[in-house]
């Protein structure tokens, strides 16, 4: 698995092992209804397994995808989950991006404080996701939509 190796890609002038590995994967999963949540998190788990994340980490990644996609179904009439790998030294990361064109989150600060919920769990879910993320970014605009990006590194 060349992509797990520690050298930065730019430092490998003639590395063939790296070249034979999969190119950076981006999976896009359309989330319209509840069953899509299950599909999306299965994709996330497979990706994490494939790149050598531990079982515990893979479960965490699947749970994060579940939280983010459920929010999109419940509050934004659906959206997209994109999954891709990031390569660092010495670990790899899964980058989860949840994008929707829903109403946005008007009271973001309160939501991110945790515990706040408009209909059963947004606050708790998002707050937890932020806590466990190695990198977390949320952009939300009222009436336009929300994009949340979470990166989880293997080490």
């Amino acid at each position: 698995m060349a992509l797990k190796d520690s050298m930065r890609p730019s430092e490998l002038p003639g590395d063939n092992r790296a070249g034979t590995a999969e190119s950076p994967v981006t999976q896009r999963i359309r989330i319209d209804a509840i069953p899509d949540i299950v599909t999306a998190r299965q994709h996330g788990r497979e990706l994490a397994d494939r790149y050598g994340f531990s079982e515990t980490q893979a479960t965490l990644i699947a749970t994060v995808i579940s939280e983010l996609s459920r929010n999109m179904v419940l509050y934004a009439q659906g959206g997209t989950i994109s999954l891709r790998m990031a390569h660092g030294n010495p670990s790899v990361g899964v980058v989860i991006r949840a994008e929707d064109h829903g109403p946005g989150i008007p009271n973001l600060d309160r939501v991110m404080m945790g515990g706040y919920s408009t209909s059963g769990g947004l606050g708790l879910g998002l707050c937890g996701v932020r806590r466990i993320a190695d990198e977390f970014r949320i952009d939300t605009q009222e009436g336009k939509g929300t994009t949340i990006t979470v990166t989880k590194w293997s080490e």
Partner: protein
Amino acid sequence: MSTSNEKFDSPLSDLELPTAIEPPADRASTAILREIVAHLRQRRAQLLEAWASRISEAGFLTAMSAEEVLEECGAMYDNYLAAVETGSSKSLDSYAHELSERTVTRGVGTHEVVGTVLLLRDVLAKSLYAEYGQNQDNLTRVLGAYGPAASRIATMVAVGFVREHEHIIRQQQEAMRKLSTPVLTIHERLLILPIIGILDPQRARQLTEQLLEAIRSNRAKVVVMDLTGVATMDAPVANNLVQTVGAARLLGAEVIITGVSPELARTLVTIGVDLEKLATVGDLRGGIERAARLLGYKVVPIDETTTDTATE
């Protein structure tokens, strides 16, 4: 509105990995390289010998016997020529990988491996001089094709070797981390987890996974985690500890923490730990006594039990 913990993209995430060693520039140089390789193959025995003596002069590969050096050199020679000829690093790359596996553990240093490859480059270049030296044009063409190919190969072997080195170091670190946190079954359903040394995030994660797995496989009801050997831990690791205790409870096991140092106590209070969710006892002995009580046992001296039976 936008909040952000950190910059989202890793600077490396969008870089493509190179797909292959750079092929020879054009058809003409391909033809020259083929010619060079044919020449070098013909003189294999002689050049190998010259190379081996240069290696021993330089004091490289002393950890290996003379036969081993010859065998290694033969294999490297053939793979080297194949790489020069085809411009493909495939066979050389996997060879470099095997070579490092064979030699890293025997204490062969990076400078020796790289030095050896560079010596081969020079030995071969010298032979090319001798062969094509009479005609200046020819020599320029030959060395123009050979030089870049040889440099690429040297870089590649070096990178492959260093990479293998790092890989082995990581594996060993992982193994040591596992060794450093034994999970002991001291009684049916009771696990003891003595933690000694520094808990970094990786080790903490591993400890969590090991403990939860051990709870399941031993069907443990109580775990005593002794932190006497841990002077301090930072807030993320302390958080991880609290979460591990919570996860263990979800699996039906109580975790008793013992040996909390003053510093650790400060950290735990600073991160706002809920003491309802964290059972602590001063020392390991007290922890085991508490565990025994939770399991419904009483620890009593043997003569006391015999007196008990005697009075009954």
